[in-house]
């Protein structure tokens, strides 16, 4: 198992290099001068020119790229142009918030999705099937910021029972987790349903039925556990993708996570911060895939990696 992990990690190095290169190229093509942006209307041509020179922003492209690589290999991801703080510090500070949000959202999606998937599979093609699938899919069918805003408006403003924005305690987590989690619930529901349907076709299920168990017992005792395998692997991937994608939820609900850091980095052409964010989230996705593989083999010991 260990060898497998190491091999996977090694393979990801060229991937990370590729991402760095692409991000670098893109940010150089995109029009925009971070210094002029920082000064906004207090723009002074002499100052901008001078600061650009001092920050080596006008050096030839390949030199800047090499310098970037060199620093990165030494673990130095530089200092954010706009925020004037070390990129590593910024990411480390922001990450736990996104992690909490992602985990909470994943939980919400499982709570909504799995029962929905089970019920839909059991009553396939009936009104129950449609209702539960519809409910879980509702989350992924709304623009996230629209859903977020509605939640804020109804529960925050009109009913006043939940805080509109911020991140100071569990109650702040409720709305963003629900909005984000509902968004993935559809996928979980689908997967649970189809996986369960497939398992239910198997012979040993027929045997269980023949033994006289009720349908529900058949499902819960025999079918469900075995159908969870694909769902569980998706769960790990899901957390990884939630981590890299909670951008809009974080903006609407004021969660200080890496999604916001990354979006601001793009908007401000903050190269060091953007590089750091992208590398970081990619690495998380890779780890997520790895975790999914390991989870897979943990749950089903028949599957081994070598």
């Amino acid at each position: 198992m260990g060898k497998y992990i190491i091999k996977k990690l090694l393979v990801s190095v060229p991937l990370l290099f590729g991402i760095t290169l692409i991000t670098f190229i893109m940010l150089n093509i995109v029009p925009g001068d971070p210094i002029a942006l920082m000064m906004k209307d207090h723009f002074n041509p002499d100052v901008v020119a001078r600061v650009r020179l001092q920050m080596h922003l006008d050096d030839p492209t390949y030199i800047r790229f090499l310098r970037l690589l060199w620093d990165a290999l030494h673990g130095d991801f530089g200092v954010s142009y706009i925020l004037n703080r070390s990129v590593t510090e910024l990411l480390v500070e922001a990450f736990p918030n996104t992690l909490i949000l992602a985990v909470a959202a994943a939980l919400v999606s499982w709570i909504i999705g799995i029962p929905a998937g089970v019920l839909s599979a059991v009553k396939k093609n009936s009104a129950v099937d449609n209702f539960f699938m519809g409910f879980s899919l509702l989350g992924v069918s709304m623009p996230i910021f629209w859903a977020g805003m509605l939640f804020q408006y109804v529960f925050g403003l009109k009913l006043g029972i939940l805080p509109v924005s911020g991140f100071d305690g569990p109650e702040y987590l409720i709305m963003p987790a629900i909005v984000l989690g509902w968004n993935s619930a559809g996928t979980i529901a689908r997967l649970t349903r189809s996986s369960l349907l497939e398992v239910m076709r198997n012979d040993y299920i027929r045997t269980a039925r023949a033994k006289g168990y009720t349908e529900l017992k058949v499902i819960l005792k025999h079918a469900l556990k075995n159908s969870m395998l694909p769902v569980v692997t998706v769960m790990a991937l899901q957390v990884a993708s939630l981590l890299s994608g909670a951008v809009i939820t974080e903006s609407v609900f004021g969660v200080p996570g890496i999604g916001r850091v990354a979006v601001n980095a793009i908007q401000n052409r903050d190269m060091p911060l953007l590089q750091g964010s992208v590398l970081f989230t990619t690495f998380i996705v890779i780890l997520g895939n790895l975790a999914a593989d390991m989870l897979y083999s943990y749950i089903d010991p028949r599957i081994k990696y070598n």
Partner: protein
Amino acid sequence: MKSNGKKLISMVVALVLVCGMLTACRTGGNAKTVDSEDAKVLHSQLSTDPGTADIHKMADYVGIPLNIYDRLVEMETTGPGQSKVVPGLAESWDISEEGLTYTFHLRKNVKFHNGEIFKADDVLYTFDRILDPETKSLGSGFVDMIAGAEDRLNGKSDVVSGIKVVDDNTVQITLAKPYAPFIPNLATPNCSIYNRKATTEAGDKFGIEPEKTIGTGPFRLKSWELNKRIVMEANPDYFRGPAKINEVVLEVIPDVETTRMMFETGKLDMFDLDDARSQIPYFKQNEKWKNQISGAPRVGIYYIAINENIKPFDNVRVRKALQMAIDRKSLLEKLFYNEGQLVNGIMPPGLIGYNPDLETIPYDPAKAKELLKEAGYPDGFDMEIAQPVDTGSNLRMSEALQSMLAEVGIRVTIKQLDDSSFFATRKAGELPCFQSVWSADFNDPNNFLYTFFAEKNVKGRSLNYNSPEVFKKLEEAKSMTDPEARIKLYQELEKTIVIDDAAWVPLFELNHLFVTQPYVKGFKVAWNGWGLSNISFYGIEIEK
């Protein structure tokens, strides 16, 4: 098979526990302020995190520096849109006859937040730091008129020759050339005074770590959670007397509608109506809020810049036609609910040098069409209006302009750019006509005319105005020492630039409206109409 289920359940339970613990840890570790009965806490907001409180490293978002540091002189808001220079860390000052040497007599026994006493050496240190190439400061434009500044910036010298410490309470600054607005210039937050000892010791953590960020101001930084919340606490030893509130909490909220909901649910104490212009009627009519609206003119001007490098705007007739084709009064009424007044030149009311007798540009589409015909465009022409992508107030203006200009045959395409592209294109001098606003950094005509029409600035502002005579006179006016003659010259230049040369279209000066919670007292709109990210919290009180 059974163990699989157990494994699953145990994993899920573990996850839930971890999640709960993490959230608890986060909240436990937060420097959350406790709104006890006695604590007066003001809740305001920022839409982006400024990143640092080191004013030398930024040019916008000066709100925190405004509150945690002081300057040699300060601008006091004496009335709506009115201001005057008052002593700050300098009690008094003398200016030599030729206007080159300023001697500041500093206040005694002013304590920095770390207990150090303020002395002249701190002034020397602060300005030298701005000019030190190592600092890579964005604020050098505010002190580069000091003698020896250029050499310091270019690395040719280790010291700024023009700053001299006479004794602990006297500092003398000599300029390279006379610069009439030097005193008001020193009142900007960019010229805040640092403590040599504290700033040197803090290194690159200055402005980032609250304990290491030291100033003399009415507040000091208490905690900084990036992208979330910045807290300032009152300085009990402030030389003008402690602030009447104990703490200021700045929430970082990127989304405007969320901000508004926070305000309406009582989580924020102030709301800037610039962020929700279309909601002004709602707030004005709402029983709860209609008496909580404060507004004042901002000493600033909304204008439409004309890029003379883009044809046909190199033709003065075309530019004059543009000026006359826009119904400014109607824009003010319909889009801004008449909150403001028309401005005809460059200098708005409230600014030293404002000329109330400057001739008004008429709204005359018929004459505009005639001018276009004379210029060779009887059937009009195509043009672009650029604007930064935003939530809508810019767009409304652009669309209104589009339909007004259509009446004289000018077909407008609206080009939306994101902030970065917008400022980069403007810097390159290639931005098509755009509408923007400029409000005063300090109360002097130079801050308006020079910023836009000086030779070195016309490209970066995408005006590309070209008049060697005006350029020469602007440089002259910058150094003139006779205040009356100087004002007269600026007024002449204003007429030349706007009326004769039609270099831009002046629009109006808008009032800046804010809504505050009923228990907030003492809120005054700053003379330059700056928004919530840039106001002083010193005079505000909370009565609950």
